[in-house]
């Protein structure tokens, strides 16, 4: 047990090291230079060189890499070139909308997707299945930005039920801020429910043909109990996998939706950092996102052991 956990932790560290290395070199592959971008067209070559020196950008790439890796290993993600503050602080300021957006989106996706998938499997080939599968196909094919614009136009502009965009005025209360997340979370929830629906349907169909479901029927149990206790209990592992991975993707990947709805989240932070070649911010944000991804994966594995007694830690 302890050996297994230690092995898992070592693997997680190895993954993080590889991620850090790739992030460092990939960001440097993009053309452009933060110093000249910062100083603008009018800057002299000497000024640019001076600024590059300040940021350590004049050193050989491998030296920059080793220095940076040392800092990262000690928990310091560096200083933003443009934002005049530590990268971790910049990320922390943007974390709230991204976190809540991911949380609400995944809840909405699960609340739509799991029951739809179950219904679809239980009434396979019937109207309920055709409707659920059709809607899932539709949801999977709709780009989130387009659905976002549509919702914005209808629910915010025409009906005026929700704010059009943004995350509330500075100093707005939590309720006010969360209110701004209703539309984007619904959009992401709908789009992501498609995959969950299809996964739930497929694994439910597998389980419904298992011998132990026949045993449950032979016990004379009512159908709803057979489905919710005996069948669903055995589909939880694949469902948790897909819900967990979707959640992990949403933490780092709601960039388009954040942009459409003007949310000051991590996705937005990364996009502006990329545009300005703010290397420390890009690197730091990607490492944090990768770290969350790895941690969620670990959490999924831990949850497996809770829902399926056959899985050992």
């Amino acid at each position, binding site marked *: 047990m302890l050996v297994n956990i230690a092995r898992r932790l070592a693997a997680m560290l190895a993954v993080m090291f590889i991620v850090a290395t790739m992030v460092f070199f990939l960001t440097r592959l993009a053309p452009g230079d933060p110093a000249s971008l910062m100083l603008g067209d009018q800057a002299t070559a000497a000024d640019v060189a001076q600024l590059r020196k300040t940021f350590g950008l004049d050193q050989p790439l491998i030296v920059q890499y080793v220095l940076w890796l040392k800092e990262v290993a000690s928990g310091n993600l560096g200083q933003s070139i443009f934002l005049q503050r530590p990268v971790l602080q910049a990320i922390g300021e943007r974390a709230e909308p991204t976190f809540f957006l991911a949380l609400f989106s995944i809840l909405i996706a699960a609340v739509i997707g799991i029951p739809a998938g179950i219904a679809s499997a239980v009434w396979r080939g019937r109207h309920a299945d055709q409707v659920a599968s059709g809607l899932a196909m539709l949801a999977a094919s709709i780009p989130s930005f387009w659905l976002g614009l549509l919702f914005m136009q209808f629910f915010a502009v025409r009906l005026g039920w929700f704010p059009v965009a943004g995350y509330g005025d500075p100093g707005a209360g939590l309720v006010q801020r969360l209110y701004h997340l209703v539309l984007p979370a619904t959009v992401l929830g709908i789009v992501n429910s498609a995959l969950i629906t299809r996964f739930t349907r497929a694994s439910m169909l597998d389980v419904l043909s298992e011998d132990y479901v*026949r045993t449950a029927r032979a016990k*004379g149990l009512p159908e709803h109990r057979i489905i919710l*206790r*005996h069948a669903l209990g055995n589909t939880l592992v694949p469902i948790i996998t897909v819900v967990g991975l979707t959640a992990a993707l949403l933490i780092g990947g709601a960039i388009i939706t954040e942009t459409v709805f003007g949310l000051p989240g991590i996705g937005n932070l990364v996009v502006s950092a990329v545009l300005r070649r703010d290397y420390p911010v890009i690197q730091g944000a990607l490492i944090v996102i990768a770290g969350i991804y790895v941690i969620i994966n670990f959490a999924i594995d831990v949850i497996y052991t809770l829902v399926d007694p*056959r899985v050992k830690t």
Partner: protein
Amino acid sequence: MTLPAPLLDIENLEVTFRTEENSVTPVRGVSLRVDAGRTTALVGESGSGKSVTSLAVMGLLPRPAGSISAGAIRFRMKSGETSNLASLAPDVMQRLRGSEIAMIFQEPMTSLNPVLTVGEQIAEQVRYHTGMNASAAMRRAEEMLGLVEIPDAVRRATEYPHQMSGGMRQRVMIALAMSCNPRLLIADEPTTALDVTIQAQILALIDRLRKEHEMGVLFITHNLGVVAEVADDVTVMYAGEVVESADVRTLFRNPRHPYTQALINCLPARALPGADGRRVVRSIPGAVASAAGVSGCKFAPRCAHTLAACHVSHPALETIDGGQTIRCCRWRDL
């Protein structure tokens, strides 16, 4: 042997599976009886309709395709009242399953739910049918595990199926089946997947429980050796029909139907010396005909005694002396 009222009396059962394009009738003209406290073996090759017959009794034919299209399944309940299971409403049938009629299956490795403890799986059925509270039902589950000779039953009740061997799991299945004192136990090839030594233990266990609880057992098997061990009465099926039935002694001493005779000749004990002097186990040439497509006797294509008439007219199931029944137009001269 004519007992007054059988526990289970199937008469001319016909099961039809309908798909959008066509329909097939895997079981037709099945009549058999199971008496309280006795074991009726239902024997036949794979595809002969044994399992479909048992699922029809349980009301577990795959829906919506499968249905009982003719015949009656009369069952005498604990109350003494007899009802026709073929025409019961699904919710009434559901309440009989597990409480009046229980079933155990061929595959002990996959027949138990892997994410629930075996105690929970038994207690769940007890609670549903008797309304006992959770802790009383769990005690009943532990008691049942003891009844099927699982040592350390209280601790075993908290284990999951994957922590048990195949023989142990089949004992759990039997404990589950027995937990509400059913009148009828349907055992569908319960020992086929087990080692021979374990097989003997399981057969002895089912037999003991049958005697102790005055329960009727419908024992489905393709293994005549097992039939000889457990059965009081035997019904032989071929291609979806009953071809012969008799008490076990009569059937083995005086099999009348050419198919039954051929089956018994296939037993290893009846192997004949081959060309090189080694004994060769015999087999029946050909394969089971599909239930459709044959207009005369279904066994005629594989029968050694076929006359022209056998291919034309379909023989009826006749009752002859001593309650033996037979479906063959030549039984008098064979």
